[in-house]
């Protein structure tokens, strides 16, 4: 920074307001996307626009970049009104939409040239800018590659380079970290940090609440309302004295969580590896939780508050700890203790190996997580295990049934909940239930009884004749779970069950899953929420089609402990694993070259 005087056109750090949001409202038909609030966004700062899906983040982004017109109120960016001075907005702001807005048929350089010219820059006159942007994004070696052939992380960097053309004063990034692995995400944080240090205002929208903690300032949105505006620290400080961890109960942790959540003084709680993490309600005393800890022989220790917990606290706490669903289900009894197993499981699509000799065994009643960046092969592995894809090589068994020979028998033993819930929008809720009971071969009295049970358990009565599309997200998830459990399968497969779901709905979901696991149901789950891996008994990490680690969440975190990260998170562990896998690859490549 020393070589760069801070006087460049008033871009000094933390000086002045970049964006003024003044009681802005926006509705689409009957849906109110923004309900009118005021906020300022400052130069030289990274401002997080944080909230669950459907909170209004993208709408606000699009209003700030002049692509949507607010119904009421006003937004001023770099001194220009987004409606009146629309043209000026397009110059003062750089915008990276979701999915990065790249032309996949064009090469890296062609994309950059296009956006440079559209922003009034001549590529030939400004070759120095191109050079430094390529250096900055480390895309230099890939200028001739088509954008469609880049990895998620590289696409994101190219999108950023395109948005940075002609030096915008305000950079707006809409969900830049979706579909990007944690390593590339690190890179992006680093780049954005450099930009804000130089005086640019950067707005980063995200549904991952843990990302909020990295922002200097946060606008927390929920259902179109601004719930919080300020440094994230300020929000987490509110629950500072109320966050605790219960340790030393590893086998009983699910039971403990369930009991803790049922206490009146506990507002929220999650499983974190071998421990249980709880947040007490505002003003509640420690007595109840102390008594519970004593009773089960757990140690209670205060912990650093987290942003997501603070958000839940802000919304009045999460759901209770008892799963009405699990209460009704009989304990699962299996002949063997192994519910799912695979050996040397391999899937090739032509030359491409999506899953490369993966082996593991999952015990009865275990919650088993499959983690990995996009394209690592976790979905392919998952699909082979539930009989949706035929393995090229290797074996897989579900409850003793060979998936290559007895696919039908194996499928009758498993429940499957696909991504985005995959419910039938043209059928009513009741018809969806009836359909799934039908496809699993339930008939007559059993069928009617099961359906009635599910309706009662999940409180679906009021919605029976509506379409699943119009259900609130939480109910949609309940319905999808009900459909996949209709035939009481001993093994449940969940593919990205909580993506796009707000944190409270996620808590409720995990309450059910914990309850099911306690009844002996084996749960296989893929997720890209790193903290969700903490709910799992064991986690399998996949990277480039291979299984690179398989252990309990705590052990994985412990292995990645370093001076830099004395108390690593799941994400740190993940990055550590991928980096060492890459080092191994490089080392073996070197060894081969030497030989």
């Amino acid at each position, binding site marked *: 920074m020393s070589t760069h005087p801070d006087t460049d056109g008033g871009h000094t750090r933390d000086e002045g307001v970049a964006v003024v949001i003044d009681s802005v409202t926006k509705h689409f038909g009957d849906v109110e996307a923004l309900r009118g609030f005021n906020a300022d966004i400052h130069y030289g700062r990274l401002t997080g626009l944080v909230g669950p899906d459907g909170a209004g983040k993208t709408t606000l982004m699009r209003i700030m970049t002049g692509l949507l017109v607010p119904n009421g109120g006003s937004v001023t960016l770099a001194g220009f009104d987004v409606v009146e001075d629309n043209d000026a907005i397009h110059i003062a702001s750089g915008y990276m939409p979701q999915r990065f807005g790249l032309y996949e048929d*064009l090469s890296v350089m062609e994309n950059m040239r296009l956006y440079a010219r*559209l922003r009034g820059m*001549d590529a030939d006159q400004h070759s120095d800018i191109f050079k*430094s942007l390529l250096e900055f994004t480390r895309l230099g070696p890939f200028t001739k590659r088509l954008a469609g052939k880049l990895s998620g992380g590289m696409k994101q960097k190219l999108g950023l380079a395109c948005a940075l053309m*002609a*030096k915008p*004063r305000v950079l707006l990034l809409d969900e830049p970290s979706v579909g990007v692995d944690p390593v590339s995400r690190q890179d992006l944080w680093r780049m954005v940090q450099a930009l804000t240090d130089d005086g640019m205002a950067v707005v980063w929208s995200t549904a991952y609440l843990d990302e909020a903690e990295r922002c200097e300032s946060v606008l927390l949105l929920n259902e179109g309302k601004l719930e919080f505006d300020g440094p994230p620290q300020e929000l987490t400080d509110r629950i500072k004295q109320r966050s605790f961890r219960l340790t030393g109960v590893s086998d009983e942790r699910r039971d403990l969580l369930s009991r803790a959540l049922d206490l009146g003084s506990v507002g929220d709680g999650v499983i974190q590896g071998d421990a249980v993490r709880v947040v007490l309600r505002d003003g509640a005393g420690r007595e109840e939780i102390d008594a519970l800890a004593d009773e089960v022989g757990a140690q209670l220790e205060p912990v650093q508050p987290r942003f997501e917990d603070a958000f839940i606290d802000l919304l009045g706490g999460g759901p209770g700890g008892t799963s009405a669903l699990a209460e009704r289900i009989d304990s699962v009894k299996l002949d063997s203790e192994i519910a799912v197993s695979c050996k040397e499981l391999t899937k090739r699509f032509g030359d491409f190996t999506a899953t490369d000799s993966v082996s593991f065994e999952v015990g009865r009643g275990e919650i088993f997580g499959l983690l990995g960046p996009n394209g690592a092969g976790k979905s392919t592995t998952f699909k082979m295990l539930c009989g949706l894809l035929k393995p090229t090589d290797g074996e897989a068994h579900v409850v003793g049934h060979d998936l290559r020979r007895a696919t039908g028998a194996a499928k009758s033993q498993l429940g499957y909940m696909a991504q985005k819930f995959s419910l039938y929008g043209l059928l009513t809720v009741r018809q969806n239930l009836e359909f799934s009971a039908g496809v699993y071969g339930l008939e007559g009295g059993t069928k009617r009884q099961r359906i009635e049970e599910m309706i009662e358990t999940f409180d679906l009565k009021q919605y029976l004749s509506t379409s699943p599309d119009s259900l609130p997200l939480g109910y949609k998830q309940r319905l999808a779970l009900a459909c996949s459990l209709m035939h009481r399968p001993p093994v449940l497969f969940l593919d990205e069950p909580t993506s796009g779901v707000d944190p409270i709905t996620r808590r409720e979901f995990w309450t059910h899953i914990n309850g099911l696991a306690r009844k002996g149901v084996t749960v296989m789950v893929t997720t890209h929420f790193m903290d969700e891996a903490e709910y799992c008994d064991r986690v399998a990490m996949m990277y480039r089609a291979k299984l690179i680690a398989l252990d309990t969440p705590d052990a994985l975190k412990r292995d990645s402990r370093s001076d830099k990260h004395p108390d690593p998170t799941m994400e740190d562990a993940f990055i550590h694993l991928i980096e060492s896998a890459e080092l191994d690859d490089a080392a073996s490549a070197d060894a081969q070259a030497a030989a």
Partner: protein
Amino acid sequence: MNDEIIEVHAGATPVGEVNQEQANHKFDGRRLFALVRKESLQAIRDPSTILIAFVLPVVLLFLFAYAVSLDVREVRIGVVLESDGAAAQSLAAAFAGTRYLKVTPARDRREVADQVVSGKLRGFVVIPQDFERRLASQLPQPLVQVITDGSQPNTANFVANYAQGVVQTWGAGRSAGMPAAAIQLEPRYWFNAELESRRALVPGAIAIVMTIIGTMLTALVVAREWERGTMEAVLSTPASVVEILIGKLLPYFGLGMIATLGSAALAVFVFDVPLRGSLLALLTLSAVFLIPALGQGLLISALTKNQFLASQIALFSGFLPSFLLSGFLFEIDAMPVPIQTITYLIPARYFVSSLQTVFLAGDVWSVFLPNLAAMAAIGLFFFAIAKRKTRKNLES
């Protein structure tokens, strides 16, 4: 780390000078050029564009040139010869001798009736037992009986008329010695002397090809930008709506013209369709037809923003009308009046008739000019609505 970013800034133009000045230009040639270049690169690299713009036209032209034929040739009919007289024999021989009919001889009508039912024959002619007596009789009475398969009306008509023709020709030949009828009619067909339907179909097919490229492809590529989120990124730059739209259209205009030239070359050199008018006239007509075709595509994509819907709407509002209502396959004069009125709204109607004229008749500007005017008017109408519907934001 920071050094890198300093470099970024060192070369950048200060905000508010050059850029501000450019923003005030609603239309900037360099931005347009960048967009045209982008679109052209995409069109060249996307295999589906090549498929729609070059492979599909060739397939269509071959289909219309060879597979679809409105001509009737070698229709299979039966000739039931119930009489053994010399005259009857000679009439049967006359039937067998024509190149338009393929005759299955029979003695009993039951033999051939079954074959008509099963579709093997299109009809049959009965030369009755008392044929000689009827022939000799002065009373006007039918000489033969013609039975046709009414499930295929066109062919049935043809068989009936042609059978009559054969009988008359035969009769005329028999009485050659006697004074013939005072006036003999010798029909001549202008522009397409052999009445080969291919000659009318191939020029018409060019209109279909152009509709596909202009309307379908344009609707698809604009909708694709919405779907992939690139439109959002481009709209957030200083590029104006007019630049974005023209940048989209110019490459497909070029593609359409190339496809026209290719199709015309195929028509002339491979399918032996004469080009009696000038190339200039052909290109002018095609260029003007592309105005409504592209305008319609643009309008569709502005309304749907979804590739699947866009292709369906393009199919129903672009392709099918120009197929069915343009006079390409079905003559407009033969349509009910309300449908005829609708055809005036179909730009392909004007293009098909112009194409048939330019290929088969020549440069008849008195036909072209009104057609050109009509196409341009419909095109401008589409563009006006498309421009209105496309805003420089995401509001629908």
